[in-house]
């Protein structure tokens, strides 16, 4: 249950990036998980290979991921965002393969699975009957802090406001002088930066490998769909719900549910409540 909360908070971060890009551009970024994977490897390089402190590595991964996200939008998506949805989806899938290839080429020589050193002592703390792993607490708290910072950025800055406006009505956004192409780029970049923070938080708990991106994408996508795909608070609730359900299903039913529960969640949501728990109408594409 508690471990479910921890993985759930990571899923929520992944979902946040997916929802952000969806709201701003009306498309699903299928390369989102792979951007997260690359950021994880970046953090590994900075922290393990270069010996930089963990927080510096995290900052590096966030900034690196931000720039990569912006670059991907500029060269990979801007030209196709105006054309039909299939082309955009193909472009994000293409980027996904490119990023996996880059990861294999760059880091593949070291080992297939890279392990990240623990942040804090791995010994559990007992509070009454509760067994808490400090590592999980740190990760959950970290994820919540990242989400809080993100919410502040969205609410309080002019750029955050412009992103909201573009998601609400892209045509009106252009009419009031918002440069919608910049907002698209920023959405990809900020989504990737949040993924970068998620990757660095998650790395000490899991192993890093080039295919981790897809697994996380599916979990984050499930969380986003459950939350309604257009709601940022929905992404948080959806992420936590998927994490907890997954942990319970694996614990009480069968461990194989760990992998399929996300798919089941997506299907159930689409059948029973297509707008998710907190979703609004779908965004109009610019």
């Amino acid at each position: 249950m508690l471990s479910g909360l921890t993985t759930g908070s990571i899923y929520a971060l992944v979902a946040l990036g997916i929802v952000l890009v969806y709201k701003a551009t009306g498309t699903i970024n299928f390369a989102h998980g792979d951007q997260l994977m690359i950021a994880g490897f970046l953090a590994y390089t900075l922290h393990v290979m270069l010996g930089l402190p963990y927080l510096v590595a995290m900052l590096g991964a966030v900034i690196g991921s931000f720039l990569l996200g912006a670059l991907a939008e500029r060269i990979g998506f801007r030209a196709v965002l105006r054309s039909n949805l299939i082309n955009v989806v193909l472009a994000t899938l293409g980027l996904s393969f490119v990023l996996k290839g880059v990861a294999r080429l760059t880091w593949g020589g070291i080992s297939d699975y890279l392990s990240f050193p623990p942040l804090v002592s791995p010994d559990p703390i007992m509070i009454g009957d509760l067994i808490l792993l400090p590592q999980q607490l740190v990760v959950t708290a970290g994820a919540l802090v990242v989400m809080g910072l993100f919410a502040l950025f969205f609410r309080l800055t002019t750029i955050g406001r412009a992103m909201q406006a573009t998601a609400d009505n892209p045509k009106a956004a252009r009419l009031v002088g918002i440069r919608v192409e910049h907002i698209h780029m920023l959405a990809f970049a900020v989504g990737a930066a949040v993924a970068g923070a998620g990757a660095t938080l998650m790395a000490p708990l899991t192993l890093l490998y080039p295919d981790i991106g897809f697994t996380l994408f599916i979990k984050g996508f499930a969380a986003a769909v459950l939350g309604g795909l257009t709601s940022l608070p929905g992404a948080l609730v959806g992420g936590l719900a998927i994490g907890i359900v997954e942990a319970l299903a694996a614990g009480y039913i069968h461990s194989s549910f760990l992998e399929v529960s996300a798919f089941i969640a997506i299907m159930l949501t689409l059948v029973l409540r297509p707008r998710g728990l907190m979703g609004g109408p779908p965004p109009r594409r610019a």
Partner: protein
Amino acid sequence: MLEVEHLAVSYGPTRILEDVSFHVPRGRVVALLGGNGSGKTTVLNALTGMVRPRGGAIRFGGQDCAGWRPDRILRLGLAQVPQGREVFASMSVAENLELGAYTRRDREGVRRDTERALALFPRLREKARRRAGTLSGGEQQMLAVARALMSGPRLLLMDEPSVGLAPNVVGDMVAAIRALREEGLTILLVEQNVGVAAAVADSAHVLQAGRIVHSGPASGLLDDEEVLRSYLG
């Protein structure tokens, strides 16, 4: 103040505007009339950079701004009230107005213009905290006009501001346009309601099949049987 010469616009292979020329003198209200699909909105979109003209010149205050980005044209002083209102539905009335001033940095001027817009449409003041999507059609239209005014334009382009409104709300809109004109604002008004155009405009141009087919004083419009019948239905 605005001079449009030989404006041409195509969507893909389809020519929408063939050759459109007209002037809007400073301080005047000029009406642009025409039937459904005659290209009125396309003219406004070309003026504000929402679509790229294929040819022709657009001079505003002496600047040739044809093909400029929408945000640059807005800064130059051309603001559009779009057809269908297009308010930010999930945001409050106050936030919509703030976004109208997105291109401006002069806080004092923005504060003054907010006051001016709310004085023009007092109902927006009462509903400042309401989400724009929950407003009535007339209130959304007022908000769309107020939002365009927040950019501090020298020329306001209005696209069918009276469409779908109850008769008494149309009256409010006519009064608001007259008040803006009194303040000295220049306005290009697209209308299908000839009565509204005749009530507020100085002169009128009629668009048909991508060309201006008739130009003249607006006061004569309602009496001009031929224009009414042949161009406006």
